[in-house]
């Protein structure tokens, strides 16, 4: 059996009932900070009584409190359902079963503590409170929790918190006597000093006792004995510590060194090895086991993260009664596991929303995503909003253009009741993700119904796609020197195809297959797909009368100073964006585009240089905004003079940041 569902209300950051469905086996919770991943882990720990008698008791902070501290929840409710019980489990968990023979466990805590500040927990099973509930059944579930690794050394040296002690305790199970007996035996040898090998200890003890009698007299005096620390099993195990040698295969105990002298990175490795060893013991455990692991990536280098997650996957595939729930912020972890294991968590309207990626209908895109959701692209799982772009130019320039767009937007809404947006994409938690092409359909299925897929489950975060119009090439007939059409062998007039450079007064129909998605995508709640109205990103940017700045950039990058290209650039710069005839503008735009694509420049280099230039200038302007923002309109006009952001880019930015589009 496995936990198929968790419901949480009134707990931590979940005010309203929040629900998450789990897979059998491995579950990887992904999502931005504060989305509720830890709330889920802690809710599971609480209801499964992991660490019942230590710090995991309910405190005031566990109850939901709104950000303004005005509203707090009156009770905590945590409910879990276990699915797929075997016939034996149906009997074992009978008192937790509902009428469908799924096991249900419920925890309720009222926000009014008793006089001593203790919160009363009510735990019940099945579907009705009045049915019999057997506490003992908890013994049939093992819940193991691995906190985020903050300090590997602390976990490896001896002591109560030592993971090593946990491992040893598990390893020993019920056969503790032998270890205890041998430590005790050694202790007895020391204290009795029968063989006379420990005369010094004996002498010290005698001395102390003599002094005691001398100072206190035999009447009041006490006696002391000297022994070897404590000999209970827990104490013995907790006093065992790890030492290391920097090469494998060393057996001489004298060569091992103290952990404190090891590097942090290697200590993390030792820690993970200890954890693996502990997990290895699960293989002999036939109990229902729930493993909760928070942020295993902390301090682990990427290869080790991958190894770790693959190990867990293998473990859960092998042990049918083991379910693992991991939280992570690591795109490395998220990208090295099948998307079927990923559950996306996001905070919405004072509750968390969990979306299992396997429940999203991705039809034929699933294979593609599984293969291509790499480290960079899986960033989308950790973002508040997403902008999908075709290539490197957009990926570099859009964050800069977004700054302008957002500044403009915020001034326009300042007089209205609309909420202003953050001033940059980073601040908004929006990631720009380069999908290297026009395969939008695969990604957009995560957010919307499109490309013949439909379903209720979507990732509830805003996603914009930016694509090019890419008009088809223009056909022109070929003429000979006499102006006569050239005919081919079969007598048809010969033609050639040339790049189209459409004008806004005469746009061309796009030839980009992604454009077909727009209608469906734009009906969705979360996704919008925007396209350049004319041709491509760079061309459309130029056509917004940004040729001056673009030519300046080109001039800087062009290897031959004072050559023809430089001269042409200068001409465009002199023109100062004051075009009356759109044909002229298009000519200049074409010139710039063609030279960006030239092997002397290249899109990436150009975009980087261009971004640098405008960013510097924008920052100079933004820097001048007075603290009361009285001059902001004027400054914005300055920025607008600097560069005009095409409307489709503006829309994409505003949508991804959660703003309202005008239409």
């Amino acid at each position, binding site marked *: 059996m496995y936990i198929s569902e968790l419901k949480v209300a009134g707990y931590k950051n979940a005010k309203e009932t929040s629900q998450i469905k789990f897979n059998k086996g491995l579950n990887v919770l992904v999502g931005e900070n504060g989305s509720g991943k830890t709330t889920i882990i802690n809710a599971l720990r609480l209801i499964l009584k992991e660490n019942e008698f230590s710090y995991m008791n309910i405190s005031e902070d566990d109850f939901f409190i709104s950000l303004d501290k005005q509203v707090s929840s009156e009770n905590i409710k945590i*409910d879990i359902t276990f699915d797929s019980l075997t016939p*034996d489990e*149906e*009997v*074992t968990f*009978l*008192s937790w*079963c*509902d*009428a*469908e*023979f799924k096991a249900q466990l*419920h925890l309720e805590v009222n926000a009014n503590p008793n006089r001593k500040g203790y919160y009363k927990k009510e735990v019940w099973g*099945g*579907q*009705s*409170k*009045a*049915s*019999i509930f*057997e506490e*003992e059944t908890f013994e*049939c579930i093992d819940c193991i929790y691995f906190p985020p690794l903050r300090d590997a050394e602390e976990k490896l040296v001896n002591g109560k918190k030592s993971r090593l002690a946990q491992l040893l305790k598990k390893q020993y199970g019920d056969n503790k006597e032998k270890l205890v007996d041998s430590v005790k035996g050694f202790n007895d040898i020391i204290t009795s000093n029968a063989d006379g090998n420990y005369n010094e200890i004996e002498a010290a003890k005698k001395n102390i006792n003599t002094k005691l009698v001398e100072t206190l007299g035999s009447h009041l005096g006490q006696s002391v004995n000297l022994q070897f620390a404590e000999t209970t099993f827990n104490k013995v195990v907790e006093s065992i510590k790890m030492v290391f040698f920097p090469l494998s295969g060393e057996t001489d105990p004298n060569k091992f060194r103290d952990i404190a002298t090891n590097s942090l990175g290697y200590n993390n490795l030792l820690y993970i090895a200890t954890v693996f060893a502990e997990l290895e013991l699960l293989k002999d455990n036939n109990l229902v086991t729930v493993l909760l692991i928070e942020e295993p990536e902390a301090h682990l280098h990427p290869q080790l993260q991958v190894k770790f997650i693959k190990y867990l996957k293998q473990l859960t595939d092998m042990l049918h009664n083991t379910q693992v729930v991991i939280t992570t912020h690591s795109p490395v972890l998220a990208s090295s596991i099948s998307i079927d294991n990923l559950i996306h968590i996001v905070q919405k309207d004072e509750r968390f929303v969990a979306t299992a990626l396997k429940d999203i209908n991705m039809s034929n895109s699933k294979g593609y995503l599984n293969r291509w959701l790499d480290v960079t692209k899986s960033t989308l799982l950790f973002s508040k909003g997403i902008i999908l772009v075709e290539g490197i130019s957009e990926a570099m320039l859009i964050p800069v253009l977004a700054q302008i767009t957002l500044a403009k937007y915020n001034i326009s809404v300042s007089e209205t009741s609309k909420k202003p947006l953050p001033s940059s994409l980073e601040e908004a938690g929006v990631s720009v993700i380069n999908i290297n092409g026009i395969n939008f359909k695969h990604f957009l299925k995560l957010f919307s119904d499109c490309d013949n897929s439909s379903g209720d489950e979507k990732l509830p975060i805003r996603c914009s796609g930016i694509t090019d119009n890419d008009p088809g090439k223009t056909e022109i007939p070929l003429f000979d020197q006499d102006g006569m059409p050239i005919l081919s062998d079969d007598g048809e007039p010969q033609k050639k195809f040339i790049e189209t450079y459409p004008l806004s007064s005469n746009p061309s129909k796009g030839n980009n297959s992604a454009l077909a998605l727009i209608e469906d995508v734009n009906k969705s709640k979360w996704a919008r797909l925007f396209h350049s109205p004319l041709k491509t990103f760079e061309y459309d940017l130029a056509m917004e009368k940004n040729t001056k700045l673009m030519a300046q950039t080109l001039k800087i990058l062009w290897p031959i100073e004072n050559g023809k290209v430089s001269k042409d650039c200068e001409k465009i710069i002199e023109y100062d964006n004051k075009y009356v005839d759109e044909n002229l503008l298009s000519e200049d735009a074409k010139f710039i585009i063609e030279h960006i694509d030239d092997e002397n420049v290249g899109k990436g280099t150009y975009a980087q240089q261009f971004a640098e230039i405008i960013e510097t200038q924008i920052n100079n302007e933004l820097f001048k905004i007075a603290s009361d923002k009285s001059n902001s309109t004027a400054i914005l006009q300055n920025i607008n003079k600097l560069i005009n952001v095409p409307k489709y880019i503006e829309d994409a930015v505003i949508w991804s940041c959660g703003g309202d589009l005008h239409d």
Partner: protein
Amino acid sequence: MTKEEMQEVLSKVLCRKDHPLHCDSCSHNPNKISSSQEDRFICRISEKTEQQLQYIFSSIKQNIFLEACAGSGKTEVVGMKMSYEISKWTDRNNGIAVLTFTNEATETIKNRVEQFSKLSSLHPHNIGTLTGFLHGFIAQKFGYKFFGNNGRNGDFSYRLIDKMMDTFKNHWLENYKSKIPYVYGAGKQESIYANQIYYDYQKKDYYIQFSENYKLTITEYYNSKNFQKFVQDTRNKYNNNELYKIEYVKKQLISDKVKFLKDGFANFEDMNNIAFKALQENIKVASIISKRFPIIIVDECQDLSWIEIQILKKLKDAGSTLHFIGDLNQAIYDFKNANPTYTKEFLSNFICYKLTDNFRSCQPIVDVSNRISSITTTIAGRTNNKLSDNSVCYYEYDDLQVLQEKYSSFLNLFNIQPESSSILVRQLSLKSNLQVRSAQKSIHLILDAIQLWKAKQQSTRIMALELAGKQLQKWLGGSKNKDNYFCPIDIKSAFRWRIFIKDFLEACCSNSFINNFENKKYGEWYKTAREQLPSILLNTYKSLKEYDENPRDFNSFPILRTPSGTTESAIDAISMFEPPTSIRINTIHSAKGCGFESVMVVSSKDQKSIGGHWKQWIEVEGESKRIGYVASTRAKYSLIWAVPKLNAKDRKQLETYGFKRIE
């Protein structure tokens, strides 16, 4: 096995005896199960009779009826049987269920098992009440699926509602008031509520419970003279012969019942029906419960009702083994449909074991009890006859109120402690006739409270707090119920409220006017009280004020009136209510399973109520005889029947049974 062999096995298992000596002589074994009696330790195993041991060693794979006569030590035997079985038990997910009829019996058996088996947790076994088991494991757990409970906040429990619940305090019951009235005379009508209705699977009809002792099936009620007259009158009035046809009446009452169940309410009979239906509708329910509890031991099986037997039969059919323990001669639960004839029939193919040694009563009491109940089995009275021919007596009474005194002096004469004796009555009404004056009925609340407070006994002080609380709440806005000494709704701390009552009573006691009832009439005291109490109240209220949500100044002080009809009577100084030497008065039903050194069974004056009169105990076959049997077999050394004045013939009849007359 011989008796010795059985004892040997038992002491090896239960006392972990590790030497060949007989268990009686293993005094040094620290695990020995023994009880101290008159300064010597009795080995609990070696005192067992062969019959008792045979049952302990009986098979748990066969259905067994252990016919245990009164005083046969069956609780001890069940406890030891259970301990023996669970000591050998290895399964962790299934166990033995021991079901009793009262919480006391559950506790007794639990104690025995804990003593014998020395286990701290009895899981996976279950010792509890039959009701708790049937409701908790079956009806509450699975019922909602078969009766469509709508549930409250995810909880699909049924709330148990008494059939005779007072609608006055439970206005919500109005939602379940039937359109069909209860007509009980010309123009005499009351409402019928859904909680009064239940289905009887045996009769295959619905019953309506009209009062504690009066119920009719719907058909019987429909055809009753009173209801028929109502039907005719209504039809004549509206000139419509279609009105109130039986189908309509049935449909109405049943639909009220269905609504009641859907809203999650059920009476006791409903709960059993729900359990029965759940087992009937879903074979898996029965099969899993019988896997969870492969052995079910029912104590006091003579008290099983028809439907309870049907439910247990379902579990038996699904694979559970049943052990029924009890004495059909002690079946006195006719009113809940427990019929020994039916039980006997059900038990006909069970293997029968017998316990025929009565360890409670001396032979004369055993003999007389057998004779009155026409029991032919030879039962040995294994207790010494201490009173020789005074063991069985009868006493003729005129005045019920002097009975206690008479009985006291009888006990005194034979040196029997009143604390270990009891007066038994059939009906509660008779019990209150015997009691001189009851505090619960006090009309002079404050006056009685002050007197009781002064007595400084723990019990009288509790009563004083209750009486004073009852009066004081009237002055402070009223309380919801009698919880926490009538703590008013407005008072936030029940703890403070109690201190307030205490302060008030202390103040009254130290007030020389109030605390003076010598040679006074009630009228006089109340006059003084009206003058004195306001200032006492105001003073003591000061410390309560901050806990009062509705602080008050007592400007218009409520008048404390002299209860009507008492103004001119002299104040009746309270002789301590139930003085410490008083003899307990129990109903025969509540004394089931108990034993007393001496018992006085009080016959009612007439034969109006069933089983209350001595003649019925002797002459009327069925439950009346069994009531007489249960009552008489409670006695160890001395049994007295207190009967109303007899004529010579009756006297002779009693004496031929073996009763000796006392004055």
